[in-house]
């Protein structure tokens, strides 16, 4: 009890400290040098009309590569730790209904397509590789939920995941070789607002989309297998 109260006090002190620190940051002023630069120069420098995308994929593309890796790691790590533990915990569940099963079959393709659309148009519209990939994974999630005994090929997932990841890095190295800078835009900016514009951004978003999609699918599969249906 005393421990808890003391802990509460400690947290209070930390909160006060942080709050008072943060309170001193003037908000909304034009202090963010870098942000202003991005807003001003995006289209000119990258050809992407979606500033967020250009920041994510070009200005801070290296971070994105890192974040993709982090996501990959999370999936891999989870897979590694859950490996072999799958069969241990079984829960019984009611089977999905017929409507569910039929409906998901039709929705699956649409969802896949939508996901692909989102990551291909990342430089033009809101969205991009990450949401796109998640939408793709959602398509598979539907099947996992609705289709009894549905499995994706583990090898296939791995293959796509690996290839997508490698392609991302390969694009980066291509930039290094062609324009002397890792992840450098070796395709030119193109005409803004066209689909085939903004240089390597769409390419990267495609790889990200595929990678995220396959990763999350794999992750879902890993987690799904802890359940079993009532027969």
């Amino acid at each position: 009890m005393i421990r808890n109260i003391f802990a509460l006090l400690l947290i209070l002190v930390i909160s006060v400290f942080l709050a008072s620190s943060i309170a001193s940051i003037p908000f909304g002023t034009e202090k963010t040098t870098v942000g202003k630069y991005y807003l001003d120069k995006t289209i000119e420098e990258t050809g992407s009309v979606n500033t967020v995308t250009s920041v994510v994929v070009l200005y801070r593309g290296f971070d994105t590569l890192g974040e993709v890796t982090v996501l990959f790691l999370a999936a891999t790590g989870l897979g590694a730790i859950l490996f072999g533990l799958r069969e241990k915990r079984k829960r019984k569940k009611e089977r999905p209904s017929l409507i569910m099963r039929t409906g998901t079959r039709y929705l699956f393709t649409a969802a896949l397509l939508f996901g692909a659309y989102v990551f291909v148009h990342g430089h033009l519209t809101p969205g991009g590789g990450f949401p796109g990939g998640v939408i793709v994974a959602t398509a598979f999630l539907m099947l996992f939920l609705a289709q009894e005994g549905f499995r994706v090929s583990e090898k296939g997932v791995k293959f796509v995941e690996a290839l997508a990841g490698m392609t991302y890095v390969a694009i980066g190295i291509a930039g290094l070789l062609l324009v002397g800078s890792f992840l450098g835009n070796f395709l030119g900016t193109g005409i803004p607002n066209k689909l085939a514009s903004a240089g390597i951004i769409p390419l990267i978003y495609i790889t990200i989309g595929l990678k995220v999609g396959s990763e999350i699918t794999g992750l879902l599969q890993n987690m799904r297998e802890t359940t079993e249906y009532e027969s």
Partner: protein
Amino acid sequence: MVSPILLIAVPLILAFSVPLWGLIHKKLEKFVPLIAFGFNTYLIFRLLPFALTERTISVVIANIKPPFGINLAVGPFGLFFALIIQLVALATAFYLLSYDPPEPSDKFYMLFILLVLGSTGMVLTGDIFNLFVFLEITSISAYALTAITKTGPAAEAGFKYLLLGSLGSTLVLLGIALIYGSLGTLNMAHIAHRISGMDSRLVVAAAILFIVGFGVEAEMLPLNGWVPDAYQAAPIPVVALLSGAVAKAGLYALARVLYTLIGMPNIIMLLLTFGILTMFAGELAALRQNDIRRLLAYSSIGQMGMIMLAFGAFGVNSVFGGVLQAFTHGITKALLFLVLGVMALHTGGATDMESLRGFGRKFPYWSMLFAVGVLSTLGLPPFAGFWSKLALIIGVIIDGHPTYAALALIATFIEVFYFARLLSVIYSSKLSPKLVERSIRNTTIPLLSATFLAAIIIAVGLYPNVFFDLGDSASRALLNRAHYIFSIIGHYLQSMGGV
């Protein structure tokens, strides 16, 4: 000059490719880490002459010049740490060839590569947010690798590590947010240039958050509770990397942030106190420890404390000692853990002192390697540890902190005590009944990899010149804040009219 970015790109592409190798043949997987770090080590040696020049260069990514894009700030200090990480990684990757990885093996190798990659990225990057990203890569792969054997203690250790580590990274992110919120930039050089204009309360807050966040990885005192458990539960090659790569990367981040970004001597000198406390806690905890793995883990904490102490002394001499000590500690601990892994093969997995009693009589070469590691840790010639410890103590005294140097020396007495006890157990004439005549596995490959590390220790001990030069330029580079700022964003500042 070859591009340092390849140090990250090549292992990354290889890490992604591990499953593909596995599709061809299951046995091919284990060569991937070796290829990756073999290549990286080659690159590092190509870059080393550059590390001797004391210059920091900015490697631009995506053709966008800092402070707007991300860049690698490759300087002697970072390269020195990258060298440590790569050497340890190479030896460990070689060791992996004869190691039965926990299943799933492809994921194990991927995580393994990414762990090293993350640490390498941390020491090379010039962007604070990128540093955070690499910290995440490092720590997440470390959590996963700690728990990968899926035993009870491993899961528990992994959980503890995850809890502390993720909280730490969150704090780092918060710190970055504070800085970005007030300065509007993420480039470390740019931040360093502007930080004097920042509200000092915010700087302090960010400094605290960074110390706590990176302190978890650097095994700083109250944040290192995960260390003994993780070192005991994780697979041996991972442990070698935890002390050889992860801890060093955490230390680098701490030093870089405090010296370059914050740059306030008062705050840096807090490291003196934390270093001393960490050192005493580690050494004392090791004193009565009977399990050698945990003992080495505590000793690792102690050594990290000593290095922190050197970094806290805020002077070129002590930092010189600190970087040298980081090098020898990384190599030595990796050696000790790799040898310990083989020792455990001969006792059916047990690593407590009683099980290993008399090991030296049966396996003289292995124990000799172990003894080299121990003696080097104790700072005895003709091993690398002698020079680093000498440089560290003398450096701290010359930089004006004799009291702290004296405390550090007192802590080493404890260290000497338990290591001497360890050696006397290993070289005891009484044999443990658990020792088997021959290990179940061929130990040629571990032998070569441990010999490689021992050879580095002895070579550096006998010819410390290059080592000194590297450490010298590394320490000067760390302290030369103005040069760092200028070489990264000098062009930008000029274009802004010298603002």
